[in-house]
């Protein structure tokens, strides 16, 4: 067995740490003096990190440091970015919720303005609406309805939980006498 000098272990450690790609044993050997046994040096580095938060592994044709597998779940941080739906999408969703199933042109009719493909796709992507079959009218338009995700997101048991439009619109005028 060859002796391993601590300085060689330090060089190997630093080189593998700083390299942007796995370091092959061959190129590691070029950093070490001729008398050094590369495999023994690698084994010494491996031993030094054995059981630590970071370990030396062999992957992708070379050596690299990796955080220990049991660390990954503990280091994981999930950043939740909440998004708001754009106003147009919110209006469209509301119309679909109250009038489903209905076609795109019917949505446009209610909103009184054209509906962009982008808005429709945003709602689809968020799984808030889904196609509910075709209407047997000229052009056989696809009709849209809300999904179960929609219910979950708004905390609704079912669609009947939506406040009836009549209640909303029949807001008594303010400023009456006492």
């Amino acid at each position: 067995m060859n002796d391993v000098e601590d300085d060689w272990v330090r060089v190997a450690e630093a080189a593998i740490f700083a390299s942007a790609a796995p370091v092959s044993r061959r190129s590691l050997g070029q950093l070490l003096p001729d008398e050094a046994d590369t495999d023994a040096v690698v084994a010494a580095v491996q031993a030094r990190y054995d059981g630590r938060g970071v370990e030396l592994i062999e992957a992708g044709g070379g050596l690299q440091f990796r955080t220990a597998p049991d660390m990954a779940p503990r280091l994981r941080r999930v950043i939740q970015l909440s998004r708001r739906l754009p106003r147009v999408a919110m209006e469209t969703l509301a119309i679909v919720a109250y009038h489903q199933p209905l076609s795109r042109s019917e949505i446009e009719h209610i909103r009184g303005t054209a509906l962009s493909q982008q808005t429709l796709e945003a709602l689809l992507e968020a799984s808030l609406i889904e196609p509910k079959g075709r209407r047997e009218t000229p052009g056989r338009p696809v009709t849209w309805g809300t999904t179960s995700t929609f219910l979950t997101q708004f905390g609704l048991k079912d669609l009947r939980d939506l406040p009836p439009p009549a209640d909303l619109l029949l807001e008594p005028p303010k400023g009456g006498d006492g």
Partner: protein
Amino acid sequence: MAPDSEPSAPRDSLLLRLDGFEGPLDLLLDLARAQKVDLAKISILSLVEQFLAVIEGAKRVRLELAADWLVMAAWLTWLKSRLLLPADQQEMEDGAIAAEALANRLRMLAEVRLLAVWLGARPTLGQDVFARGMPENHTEIDRSRLTLDLGSLVAAYLQAARRGTADQLYRPRTLTLWTVQDAVRRLHAMLGSAPDWAMLEQFLPDHLTDPAERRAAVASTFMAGLELTRDGALQMRQSEAFGPIELRGGAGTDDE
């Protein structure tokens, strides 16, 4: 040290010297350093004279000496007059203040020069020391979460409904009437699968709720039927007046 002495270097190297400086202040600092290590103790007057001597020497060789060198030279000439032969107390004070300001600028420049050297001597990341070459990212960004609440849904509905209604006042709803062309297309599509006699009503589009739309569809389908009969694509019959109209695919007589 004789402050008035011309620089002893030959002209060529004088030119090279000026080119080597970042600017007049740089040359002044260099001259000051030659005087004293401690910039607080330099003689501004002798500094000024050395500078003017260098500029004078350079001007003799090269007339196109850069403007900032000449501006500095002019200012230093003014300063020299205030320091050497002040006409009155005021001028003497002006000279002292200006000399002080110049000394401060030189000290400031010397400081940042030294800081640059100090920074350069530090183990610099990416040059002398290296960070992890293959960082791992354990951060997950979850963009799926939507902020949704029922209140804004309802508010959005009201807004849309209000605008939609307002719009109706100006743009009455256009009826989507079943045209003859629509009916021709539909008959073509359906006749292949209906070799037997079938009632005209069966060829109407589905979901016709509006009576006006339904009447229009009946009329269009009848017209389409007549046209297709003329073309020999189908046959029509009506067994009695006001009786049901029936259609069947294929030509009764084969012309063409």
